[in-house]
């Protein structure tokens, strides 16, 4: 598995899609990320990440319905592909393994 394919921001976006499915599209993802991280997230950055993830095959998309705020324009709804799901869980597994190996008393010395 090519782990280097998944950047940190991409990983968060991918996770957001997983959380927001079946209503995941760029605006809600960006808003969600802003709420979670407390930082401004530009629509463009999210859009770019989504495009990249789709290219890599971790996401698939369809054009969804239009709303009034969008000026009658349709939105692109993203869902995670099987590959995307596997990558996500592998990433998680790697992280968990590392967390498990941290000796608790060292952890206390962080602060």
């Amino acid at each position, binding site marked *: 598995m090519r782990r280097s394919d998944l950047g940190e921001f991409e990983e968060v976006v991918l996770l957001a899609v997983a959380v927001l499915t079946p209503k995941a*599209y*760029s*605006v809600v993802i*960006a*808003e969600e990320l802003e709420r979670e991280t407390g930082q*401004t997230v*530009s*629509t*463009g*950055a999210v*859009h*770019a990440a989504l*495009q*990249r993830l789709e290219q890599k095959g971790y996401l698939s998309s369809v*054009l969804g319905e*239009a*709303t009034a*705020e*969008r*000026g009658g*324009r*349709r*939105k*692109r709804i993203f869902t995670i592909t099987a590959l995307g799901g596997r990558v996500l869980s592998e990433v998680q597994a790697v992280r968990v393994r590392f967390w498990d190996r941290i000796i608790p008393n060292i952890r206390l010395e962080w602060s």
Partner: protein
Amino acid sequence: MKPPRLADHLLTWFCAPHLREEVLGDLHERYALRVTRLGEAKARRRYWRDVLAYVRPSIIRRQPTQFSTPKTTTMLRNYLKIALRNIVKNKAYSAINIGGLAVGMAVAMLIGLWIYDELSYDKYHQNYNRVAKVMQRGIFEGVFGAGGYMPLPLANELRTDFADDFTYVVMSSWTREHILAFGDKKFTKQGNYLSPEAPDMFTLKMLRGTRAGLKDPASIMLSESVSQALFGSDDPMGKIVKIDNRLNVKVTGVYEDLPYNTEFRDMNFIAPWDLYVSSEEWVKRAQDNVEWNNNSWQILTQIAPNATFDAVNAKIKGLRVKHVPETAPYKAEVFLQPMSRWHLYTGWDKQGNVEGRIQYVWLFGIIGLFVLLLACINFMNLSTARSEKRAKEVGIRKAVGSVRAQLISQFFSESLMVVAFAFILSMLVVILVLPLFNEVADKQLGILWTNPMFWLSGIGFSLFTGIIAGSYPALYLSSFQPVKVLKGTFRVGRFASMPRKVLVVIQFTVSVTLIIGTILVFRQIQYAKNRPIGYDRNGLITITMNTPELHTHYNALREELLRTGAVIDMSTSSTPATDLNSQNGGFEWEGKDPNFKAQFGTIAVTHDFGKTVGWQFKEGRDFSRNFTTDSAALVMNETAAKYMGLKTGSPVGMIVKWNGKPMRVLGVIKDMVMGSPFEPVVQTVFMLDYNWAGVINIKLNPEQSAPESLAKIETVFRKFNPGSPFDFKFTDQQYALKFATEERIGKLASIFAMLAVFISCLGIFGLASFVAEQRTKEIGVRKVLGASVFSLWGLLSKDFVVLVTIAFGIATPLAYYFLSNWLHKYEYRTDISWWIFAVTGAGALGITLLTVSYQSIKAALINPVKSLRSE
């Protein structure tokens, strides 16, 4: 509550069409969310930021599967491909086009670099806009005169009385050769004595030491190259250097060599002004006695930040008359000549109108434009000439569905591609010929790789050329009616070739004018070169007397040199025979009109001067050691004798008083050309004075070879004058230098003229080949019916001969007008004789026939069976 519309427009413009919907939708939705959360102002700001954040390749990139409009790159690629194919297909035509354009562009580029260099003269100095030379002007017998020779006390007065107007006032000696010695290394180097503020004023870039290095009167600042010559890579700071074998000074600074395009590029060292005053008796005298009448130095100034040249000029203009009241009748004025005008506006004509090198800048600028124009004309002519060949193509394209705009784009991309190739080629040409050009033009030009202006103007000018040159074919060809063209009834109208003919006439008018001009410039130089100079410059050398030893041992030196047999005669004089830079008033003689303020060029010579330079007596006799009374005597030239306006005719035997000192006129010599060979000879008197010696004149023995003689002379010189290097100048070479400017301009002009002719010929060569091709059938028919090759050649050449003749007819009066204007500025000038026009006309016709003949004879010789069988 709509998001910013401009931002939307921007996004729609750069965003790929297939992404537009979702991106815009997202943005608008988020905008609505933000308005409720953050308020409208903030939301708008964020909106803009988001839009700008979308400027990235993944958004801009168009999808390849989308249908492309004719404006998109797909079509452009198509245009370029077809353009390239067309260029490769018609090799001869493309070569003529690209080659001609490249030559024209290369010429324009070279001229552009030359002009840029001329205009950026002295800009090295950061205070360029505030530095000025103090000068004085006056009207002497109706003739305007101006000069930079200034009296010493003026600097002090400017410093004290006008302290608010000047940041710096700098006294300066004239840049001249001095001997610099360190240990046994001796060099003759040019340098100045300057006030201590000079390095600040010139904003010298110091490599060692500071700009304050001239504060100590026993110091010297060296240029990098001089430091290199004297000390190599050693640290020169604090070392003791000897100037002219008598002044010991300490090196207190090394500055970066001044660039080639500065007025002071020869200033290789700077010594303190105070040292000059204390070491030169006559300068000290001028300072101690406050001599306002001794105009022997330069004064350079930098005006204060709040001052303007006009305001300062108004204040100081009366200073000359104030201190030297007798100059009032000449309307003498002191004024500032700003540094920005030093190089290009150096001269004044007799009425006081400004002139100078700026004329050459204009001249070359115009020539450059014309040469470029000629190249563009070729391009247009050849393209339109080919129009008939491409008419069918246009017809078919239109019938198949091309829009006119597409055809126009096609033709423009073709012409732009040709121009692009030509531009690249011309850059190569410029890189190759630049060293040669620098040599001819006496410049150190380089391609301005890092100058954005250079690239902007280069590219802008290529675009312009491409569009101008391509406009005619693009607009003209694309207007063809497909039905007419394809039906085969298409005929270019009777007057269609008219513009082409006019352009050819313009081309040849320019070329012929340039040729006539060049011939005349060279005629004028040759004329002045052949001018009788009144003395014999062969085997004459001069040596500067720059050490005290030469003065004290002069007689012994002379005797020993004569004994070697290498020298026929030797004498001293205040200036070399090629130089007359001292003029004096204060002359009186019997019968002189008291209102006539006579002024003579004055030269001090020794007894043997006449024999050394070989002057020729018209009447009277030379100075002689046999008459002790000759110490108060003078010899004058013919012009001076006439200038005195004597009723009796000859001044020989008369007494002429100079500042009260009576001197007998011994003789009158034939005029010697000492100043500019283009100017009338100045009325000059030669006086006997052993103390006012500046150079030694030596006449070499013609029986011996010059190197041999010089070696002998050098040994003797070393013996008497061990402190200085043996430097000498050949008078004939010095004389030749007087033509340098004119010859340089002439050479450049002739190169450009030749290229102009070349480009024009290239043009008619191309045209002739098309005409020949067009008329192949006609020629075939004529041949079958019995026309001779000669009559066919005449038929094809006739048109061009007529055009060139018309051009010649236009060029003749034009050239005559401009050239008689140009010649007018020379006092000693050749006439514009008719044969120049005759030769140029014949030459132009000859070249035309030669160029056209190749094509017409080829066409005439072709087997009619071949040409008639086709189709």
